[in-house]
């Protein structure tokens, strides 16, 4: 199986002097293409920090991160947005949709970032909405949607840039059980049938059956996990 993300000896510290906090302490992890990997652990364990580092939102204090063969841990702050744009799609706990844009425009916005505009963007965004079952809601405002529908729009938006990796932060936390399972079904389908690598940070034990692998973090260290290097 091809490797999508490789994390080697990654450390991350915040603050300095006596106030320094070691959020990650020598983390090694590999994420394969086409798998659903769950990152679990108590609050403050470092899982969101690790997700942010894998998503090129945070730079590690030490160690190496390789995404799609490119060592991203050496990139400057100015270079990191390019990697996010080209390789990664994000799904957030709070959906983070743009309330001033319609459902379709929310998806088109992600395409706009990649320079895809006009008729091509409209066609592509409608395709994506169809895939998540929300084509009939294309002209609706996000405030008119249910939580599950909002998250499906967020998934369509995350997929707009054709990313190889999808990073999801507590994607079912704001959803009821049925809706949460539908979202996890969709994410698993993306991994298994479309070859995306899906990393999900969650506290939700009901989601566990959807994981191909589960990695647990405690105190900034990986405490267990199948396939951990």
């Amino acid at each position, binding site marked *: 199986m091809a490797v999508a993300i490789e994390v080697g000896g990654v450390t991350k510290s915040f603050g300095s002097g006596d106030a320094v906090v070691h959020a990650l302490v020598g983390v090694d992890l590999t994420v394969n293409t086409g798998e659903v990997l769950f990152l679990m652990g108590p609050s403050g364990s470092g899982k969101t920090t690790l997700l942010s580092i894998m998503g090129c*939102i945070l730079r590690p204090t030490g160690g190496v991160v390789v995404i799609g063969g490119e060592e991203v841990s050496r990139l400057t702050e100015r270079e990191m947005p390019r990697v996010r744009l080209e390789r*990664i799609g994000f799904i957030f706990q709070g959906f*983070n949709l743009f309330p*001033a844009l319609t459902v379709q425009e929310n998806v088109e916005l992600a395409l706009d970032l990649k320079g895809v505009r006009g008729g091509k*963007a409209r066609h592509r965004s409608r395709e994506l909405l169809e895939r998540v079952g929300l084509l009939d809601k294309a002209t609706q405002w996000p405030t008119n949607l249910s939580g599950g529908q909002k998250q499906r729009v967020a998934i369509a938006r995350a997929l707009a840039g054709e990313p190889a990796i999808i990073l999801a932060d507590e994607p079912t936390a704001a959803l009821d059980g049925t809706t949460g399972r539908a979202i996890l079904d969709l994410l698993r389908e993306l991994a298994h049938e479309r070859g995306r690598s899906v990393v999900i940070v969650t506290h939700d034990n009901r989601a566990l059956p959807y994981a191909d692998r589960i990695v647990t973090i405690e105190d900034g260290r990986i405490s267990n996990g199948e396939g951990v290097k």
Partner: protein
Amino acid sequence: MASLAWRNLFHDRVRLVVTLVGIVFSVVLTSVQFGLFLGFVRATADLIDRSGADLWILSRGVVNLENGIPFTERKYHQALGVDGVAEARRLTINFSTWKKPNGSDESILLMGVEPEGGLGIPWNLVAGRVEDLRQPDAVIIDELYKEKLGVTELGQVFEIQGRRARVVGMTRGIRIFTTSPAVFTTIDRARQYFGLPRDQTIYVLIRLAAGADPEEVRQSLQSRLSYVEVLTTAAFARKQAFYWMFETGAGVSVLIAALLGLVVGVVVVAQTIYASTMDHLREYGTLKAMGASNGYLYGVIIRQALISGAIGYALGILISIIVSETSLSTTTAIILPWWLLLVLFVITQVMCVAASMVSINKVTRLDPAMIFKG
């Protein structure tokens, strides 16, 4: 897709209205003040600009039109003999006193002209003719000042310096910067009113022969005539405007008010755009996480500022044009030439972009990791 900037603006209509009110206020204040300044400049220099003369001969040391110093008419005769001079006319200008039928006095600017010539005479007559000034005691006033001078009809008789003055004509739109309206009469009568000797004048106005070079003739006159200054009409108009606008400080206060308008605009727009940015901070964080460059985010914020600026400008200028049109029937004209409207559009847009800098600074320092916090 409608731009994010456009949608953000119109999504929060209350904030948009607040922003637009600020911009409109700023545009109206700034344009009216600049228009007032231009109106003042025109009022100060109109008697010079519209004189029909190419050159002006005046006593040395004269700093403004209204306070000329008499000199001997010999200069006038000498000027007529200079090559390139096609016509020369004498002109006197003095502050004088106009007595109304009710006995009250008004200060006036008495213009003594040669009605038979084409220089320095009143223009834009709506009643009577310039030649009517040859009638006994004849004077021409501007209709803007009818009420101030107590004139209700042609033929009415008043007193200037205790002598008869009969209104034989009226002009339209000859505004004077001071509170003393222009009253035209013949130079001979003006001398009598003012007690100026018959061999003295205050200005000599020169019309050049066709093809004559103004600067050459000016230098030629200057070298032949002692104790006087020879200026082109444009130079004298500039000197006159500079005196009233800057040496007296009258124009400075108008310009300061215009600048104040700009400052108010910047503050209001900066505040509302910043508040809007703070409201959308999580969205900007999301955009950053999605891979948007700082440049993309700046584009959204600046477009918001430019759209607000354009709408606010259009509404503000509409109000200013109405105010300007209304002012044209009063003694204080607010002039809005097309180039001023263009300059104000650029200034408004620069003001709005400058106002968005605080927001841009905030977004630049925005950590995209904030989107994972709650």
